């Protein structure tokens, strides 16, 4: 279990390092997704299955798709500050991500096939749910308010500009 934690931690650090240093925004995004998946593996080795699932579903799924939508809405090639025009690129960007992803896949297969239910003391999802709706009820309500405020703010900021406004 320790070796798996080591490997996934190393994959997370490497993928994040690549994510903050790549030039093209889409490469950064994909490397960051890889890093989040590695952190999810780390969560699952630490005995936190709910956090691992939420990391994949909410972080790597929802939030990164939001980034992807924003990237698609912005035409980043237009100002000419991003290098390269696409076609005829080398295989190198895919190689790094492919190797790191393959390491994670190998880890997942090993855990599924060889070591079922190992690891440290598990914190079951049921306990987390009981805590959420017991002592943390007020915090959950505040989080829902925060999400509502985020929704309203995003709607207000993303609205198309009225024609008559002077700016």
């Amino acid at each position, binding site marked *: 279990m320790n070796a798996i934690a080591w490997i996934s931690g190393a994959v997370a650090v490497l993928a994040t390092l690549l994510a903050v240093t790549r030039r093209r925004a889409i490469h950064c995004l994909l490397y960051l997704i890889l890093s989040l998946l590695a952190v999810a593996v780390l969560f699952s080795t630490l005995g936190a299955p709910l956090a691992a699932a939420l990391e994949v579903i909410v972080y790597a799924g929802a939030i990164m798709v939001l980034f992807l939508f*924003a990237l698609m809405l912005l035409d980043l090639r237009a100002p000419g500050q991003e290098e390269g025009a696409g076609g005829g690129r080398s295989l190198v960007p895919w190689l790094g991500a492919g190797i790191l992803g393959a390491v994670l896949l190998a880890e997942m297969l090993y855990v599924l096939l060889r070591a079922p239910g190992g690891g440290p003391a598990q914190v079951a999802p049921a306990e987390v749910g009981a805590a959420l709706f017991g002592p943390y009820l007020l915090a959950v309500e505040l989080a829902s308010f925060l999400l509502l405020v985020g929704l309203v703010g995003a709607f207000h900021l993303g609205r198309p500009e009225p024609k008559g406004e002077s700016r």
Partner: protein
Amino acid sequence: MSALAVGLVTAGTLFVLGLAGVLVRRNTLIMLLSIEVMLNAAGLVFVLAGSRWGQPDGQVMFLLILALAASEVSVGLGLLLQLHRRTGSLDADRASRLKG
């Protein structure tokens, strides 16, 4: 080293990488991504602590961080779209002459 120590080292490194990304990069989208990296590292420490003492509180805090990250990203991306609409690029230095 136990899995706990590995996780702590990973979280610290991730946080430093995210901080460096915010400070070094000038592309606003990547600065936002680096903030996500830092939030993720903080969540990792919470889950680690919860796993160390076998309590569900760590994962509850991770859930709250998740909600915070989601709302922060939605507002941040809205601001980013506005920046792109007004200055025509995502460069943070282009927004150095904001007024009012």
